């Protein structure tokens, strides 16, 4: 698990953990490990969401600024 999973992977795994917990398929012994994992997955998902949101914000903010002085970047695109 050294690679950061994709959002989809993380979300699917999260859901399956939640579902396992719901169906009581997880023993108490595993539970905190699973919850820890779920927390990590949630964190990953949230970070991904946040970063995407930031990306969008940044893009739209940049849009406002760059369009006022976009000559320099024009070639770089």
């Amino acid at each position, binding site marked *: 698990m050294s690679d950061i999973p994709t*959002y989809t992977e993380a*979300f699917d795994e*999260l*859901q399956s*953990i*939640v579902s396992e*917990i*719901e169906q*009581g398929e997880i023993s*108490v012994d595993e*539970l905190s490990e699973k*919850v820890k994992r*779920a927390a990590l997955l*949630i964190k990953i*998902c*949230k970070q991904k*969401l946040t970063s*995407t*949101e930031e990306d*969008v914000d940044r893009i*739209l903010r940049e*849009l406002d600024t760059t369009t006022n002085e976009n000559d320099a970047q024009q070639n770089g695109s």
Partner: protein
Amino acid sequence: MKESIILSFTENTALTCARLSKILTMPEIVNDKTVFTLLEVTKSIQKTLAERYKSAYWVKAEMNKLNYYSHSGHCYPELVEKANGKVIAQIKSILWKDDYINVNNNFLNVLKEPLKDGIKILFLAKISFDPAYGLSLRIIDIDPSYTLGDLEKEKQETIKRLKSEGIFNRNKLLQIPMLPKRIAIISVETSKGYADFLKVLETNSWNYKFFHLLYPSLLQGDRATVSIKNQLKRIKKVREHFDVVAIIRGGGGDIGLSCYNNYELAREIALFPIPVITGIGHVTNETVVEMISFSNAITPTKIAEYLLQKFHNFSVPVQKAEEKIRDKSRRLISDEKTKFGSEIKLFRSVTENILIGNRNQIKENINSLVQQTTFRFKNEKEYLRFGREEIKRGTFKFCAAEKQEINGFALIMKKDVISQIIQSKTALNNMEKNIENMSPQSVLKRGYSITMSNGKAIKSTENLKEGDALETIVYEGRIFSLVKSSIKTIE
């Protein structure tokens, strides 16, 4: 030659000869020959003719040449009659100054044409013969309406011919350039029409620039036909430099325009390679040239305005195009910006929506996680509590059951032990009673007794003899006796 013409002109040759011989009554005889002087002869002719042709006659003929002499004011028209192109009759004529003025005025009034060469005329004439000048017709009057009809006929013929040749519309069918700015002008430099034309063109307030070159020409009267044709020919040679030919006449009144009905000229114009526009400036019937020209304006000013209009027709759309390009291109950009802007807005909102959706999903999962784990812990704790209670209950129940059983044992034991003791007691008592019952004492009490001999109880009669001493034991004492006799009772 001249005579033959004259003769041929007379109506009745035979009659004329007879008269001539009558006139020559006093001849000179020379060498048997009767010789007349020329004067005699001519006088005779004069006399004869005067007698013969007393009145004036209406004659129709072609007037080839008017032969107007401006210093005298008289005219000497050349009259001919043609058949199949050949001159079949010819005569001199005279139109005296006063008559000429009169006739010419009539012509101008009726035909809008002066009296001129090459027209057919119906004239009132007296036949005159002058010994010095010979035979001629003195024209007294010319009927302009006849000539009018003839001119009209010529005009119609010209039209008909042009049409039959298929060139009547030829010039009209040409394309005039969008900007007819290079104009070959056929006009008279000093004419008012030309000046008007140039003034309108060159002082236009839109700063339209025209290029024009004057090709001077007569514009009315018979000679105009040739003159115009010549200039047209010149223009034709440099036609690449011109967009249009303008024939401009102005200020000349309505006189002398029949040249514009001339077939040759009309044909030249019809076939001209670039559009010819006319501004001949008159109020009478349209001439053929005007009909077949590319465009006809009543006055030179109108031609100029026509040309300016063409410029307008070009300039206005260009102006409009410029405005439209300005408006529309800016509009297009601003529309596109709006569209682009709303697309970006949409982009933001849809991405935000999808992110919110995902966040909610995550939140739901978190909630579910919290709920489920909490529930799970509660359940487990519940079970542990239940287990504890169950253990307590189970053990106490078990212990109680054991105690019950043990108490049961105690009770059973107690009961059985007591009953055993009681039974034992009963058994003992029974035995005691039995023994008591069977003891000798009890038997004796009921009346039994024991008889003994020698300390032994006697059970039979054997061994017993008379006199043996017996001891009998009874309940309350002993009896001592002797045997008397014995009887055996049991065999």
